[in-house]
């Protein structure tokens, strides 16, 4: 091994020495260079969002070099012939210039748009992973809330960016934004006049959105992303339950060199996917839409996917409007706009932000959690999550109900009527189905732990009975399953006199006790019928003797199942 390094090369030792004498970084690096990162595919979803954000910053900076955030009207004289001579805003003209007259401009514009979609999508799936594995639990609630803020900001960032090219499609989105803003009680007209610098559309909104889009919002996002990373680093990543993994350790690969290289490669993969999409898949062909005019709109106008749920909510709302004070010039409540604009977003974002605290209030669980839950092992949480996804999904689909109606030859009106019912029914249905599925999966785990795996080997016993040989599960898989811990429950049991414990006597306390009873507890114990309820924790050597009996034809243990009766 003559190629091994024996001493740090001078080119690295010199600058390192210079820096350490001034910053003292070695003590930090000593502790952190070999920081352990656990391995699981689902831990990489958030990284998609992170890398998309970096791509957004890079491509976005490129776009600012040519983009002119002005609504001043100019005649177009660029190289796209169909629009030559048409009066348009400088914003639209410069967006066309980037698309047609700057080499690589179209590529960067399309990469920026694709990366934006991937950014939001990455955040969403990452949030779902964190939710379903309970990785938001103590001590990670703060990081969870930062994540919810990031998601909200990403939507705002998307909306402001989407409006900048000032084409007909982006203008339609802006018009809807205005219609929603002006509908807000008391402050609606003020907000719109302040935002647009007067009446819609005015001449300011593009430059104002521009400063929000390239400076204020990304600045806050960058700060929050940094905080998100620092907290993740300090608190160490959660890990999936498995062999040798528990709440007091973290098992995986070291940051230097393995995780670092993996993360770098993953960034490059994300970049390659975005570049590939931008090359082969057209997105937002603004030149086809023409300049914005409030007098026109193209049929089939759709927002970017992450705004689809708001669009769907607007579409299925019945025409409710209230005039609180009749004909006097105040008190108009356009509920058909206010409700869909605020309620679904409010339910989802507030629900996300509060969930860790509500769960703790219900379970009374104040412990630190570093081992992720398998979704099946907290069936109510998983069901609530699936309910929320269904709620969101129905709204999202309804945001494209005109496309659904056209492509599937369904009456447009019926898609709306169906949506009005489904928005209530589908989440409830999703809850029930998910709950049953979770329990079913828990039962299957229980069967594997207490009976073993079906080996596919049929054995004939001396008296003629056929049985299938069951073998104990592989060590790592068993450890993974035994990572299950019961969901905590409040001490809700009534004392012998029938009096509920303190704090559970009022109406709210009773509700809390009821919820705790339903939410907490062990639904399907892993070792059911084998006499030991505590089948989790560090060592499970006590299981070995039980499985040693497998294959010996011990029918009373129920390990081998007869297939003849």
């Amino acid at each position: 091994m003559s190629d091994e390094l024996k001493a740090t090369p001078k080119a690295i030792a010199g600058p390192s020495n210079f820096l350490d004498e001034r910053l003292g970084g070695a003590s930090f690096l000593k502790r952190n260079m070999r920081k352990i990162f656990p391995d699981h595919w689902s831990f990489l979803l958030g990284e998609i969002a992170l890398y998309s954000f970096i791509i957004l910053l890079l491509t976005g900076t490129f776009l600012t070099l040519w983009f002119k955030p002005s609504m001043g009207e100019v005649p177009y004289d660029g190289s796209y012939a169909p629009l030559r001579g048409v009066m348009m805003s400088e914003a639209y003209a410069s967006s066309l210039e980037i698309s047609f007259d700057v080499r690589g401009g179209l590529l960067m514009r399309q990469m920026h748009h694709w990366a934006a979609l991937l950014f939001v999508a990455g955040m969403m799936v990452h949030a779902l992973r964190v939710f379903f594995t309970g990785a938001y639990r103590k001590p990670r609630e703060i990081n969870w809330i930062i994540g919810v803020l990031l998601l909200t900001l990403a939507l705002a960032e998307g909306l402001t960016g989407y409006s900048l090219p000032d084409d007909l499609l982006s203008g339609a989105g802006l018009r809807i934004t205005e219609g929603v803003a002006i509908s807000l009680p008391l402050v609606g007209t003020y907000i719109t006049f302040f935002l647009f610098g007067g009446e819609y559309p005015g001449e300011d909104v593009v430059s104002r959105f521009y400063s929000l889009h390239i400076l204020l919002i990304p600045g806050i996002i960058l700060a929050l992303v940094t905080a998100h990373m620092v907290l993740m680093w300090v608190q160490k990543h959660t890990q999936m339950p498995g062999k040798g993994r528990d709440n007091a350790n973290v098992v995986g690969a070291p940051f230097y060199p393995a995780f670092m290289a993996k993360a770098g490669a993953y960034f490059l993969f994300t970049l390659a996917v975005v570049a590939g999409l931008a090359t082969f898949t057209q997105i937002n062909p603004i030149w086809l839409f023409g300049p914005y005019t409030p007098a026109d709109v193209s049929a089939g106008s759709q927002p970017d996917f992450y705004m689809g749920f708001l669009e769907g909510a607007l579409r299925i709302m019945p025409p409710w409007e209230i005039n609180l004070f009749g004909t006097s010039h105040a008190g108009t409540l356009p509920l058909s706009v206010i409700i869909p604009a605020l309620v679904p977003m409010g339910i989802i974002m507030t629900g996300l932000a509060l969930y860790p605290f509500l769960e703790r209030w219900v379970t009374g669980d104040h412990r630190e959690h570093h081992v992720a839950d398998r979704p099946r092992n907290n069936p109510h949480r998983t069901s609530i999550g699936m309910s929320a996804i269904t709620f969101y999904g129905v709204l999202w689909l309804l945001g494209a109900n005109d496309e659904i109606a056209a492509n599937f030859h369904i009456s447009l009106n019926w898609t709306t009527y169906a949506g009005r019912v489904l928005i209530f029914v589908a989440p409830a249905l999703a809850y029930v189905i998910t709950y049953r599925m979770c329990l079913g999966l828990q039962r299957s785990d229980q069967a594997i732990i207490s009976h073993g795996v079906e080996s596919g080997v049929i054995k004939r016993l001396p008296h003629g009975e056929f049985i299938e040989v069951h073998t104990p599960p592989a060590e790592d898989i068993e450890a993974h399953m035994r990572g299950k811990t019961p969901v905590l429950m409040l001490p809700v049991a009534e004392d012998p006199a029938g009096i509920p414990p303190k704090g559970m006597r009022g109406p709210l306390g009773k509700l809390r006790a009821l919820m705790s009873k339903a939410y907490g507890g062990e639904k399907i114990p892993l070792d059911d019928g084998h006499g030991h309820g505590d089948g989790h924790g560090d060592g499970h050597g006590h299981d070995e003797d039980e499985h040693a009996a497998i294959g010996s034809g011990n029918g009373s243990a129920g390990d081998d199942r007869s297939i003849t009766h």
Partner: protein
Amino acid sequence: MTDNEHEIEQADERVPKRVIGTPAPGTSMLGAAEAPEAAEEDVPGVTLQDEAKARKAERIVALCFTITFLASIAFIVSYVYFQVGSPEATGTSNLALGSSLTIAILGLAVGIVIWVRQIMPKYSLVQERHPMASAEEDREVVGETFLRGANESGFVKRKLLRRTLLLAAAPLGLVPLVLLRDLDNSKMPGAKFNSMLRHTVWGEKTKEGKPLRLVVEGTGQPIRAADFNSPGGILSVVPEGYQHDLNALAKATLILIKFRPEEIKSGVRQNWTHDGIVAYSKICTHVGCPAALYEQNTHHILCPCHQSTFDAADGAKVIFGPAARPLPQLPITVDAEGYLIAQGDFEVPVGPSYWERGDAEAEVREKGGQA
């Protein structure tokens, strides 16, 4: 996976290693499946790769990195070679730049992944976690230090200081908010916003003091009533002189429809029509999209944004969708030369509802009108 025949003949005590329908070793749920042999293990948790495999992987990685090298050069060459300036040329340039960039990055990414997975050791290192909470004594020290500092500063003892500081903070905090007031460029009092929203340019007159003509959107042609004579016809119409004023268009754009006299129902204000020609605001009363689609047979006006549907033959009343109010009708007539003109402004505010709007339709009815 056909090796189960001899497996089945195993002695009773032995557990079969692998059979049809069960996962391959490594991913197997069968307890007997053995983990692949570690090549050598100097440090616990660090499994070195087999050198022969690693050497093969090295060659693949080198190939990947070479592809990146070539693709990057292809990118630079494409940048120089493929000029832009027409949609076709831009398309070619985009394809050349994008595919070379994609391949370059992909090559690097794939190379690094193979490097990590086949050349670097396999790791299963363990690190201890520590409770996030600080040690009890540290907390106590912090608590004491906080109290000492608070008392030393005099913030607790000196009430005057504390109260005037709070007093000072309140208006200072409002300063940034006050600064935002001029975001509305018109500088008019907020109470005026409402009256602005209630009017459109249709209430104005031309320089000669005549009512505004209706002109076709796009061409700017005035419309002679006699020429707009095919029933079922529809036009998108804007006010004369405001064809390029987006602020005016956002409220004043019209949809003009020609009916046969017998088609018109009671919801339409007859004295606001001319010879079966009816003008409605094109701005949807839901959130303000242009209600641009018209179905001739049913006389339905449809807003493509959220599918609010209005019956044009019956005063544009809402028959479907989230819009709560009909599209306001504009009173029209013809001038001496036979061109369509506005009799005046809309009687009710157009476009989306807002807090100060009130029930304008009821207001009109109270005054004896029809709305």
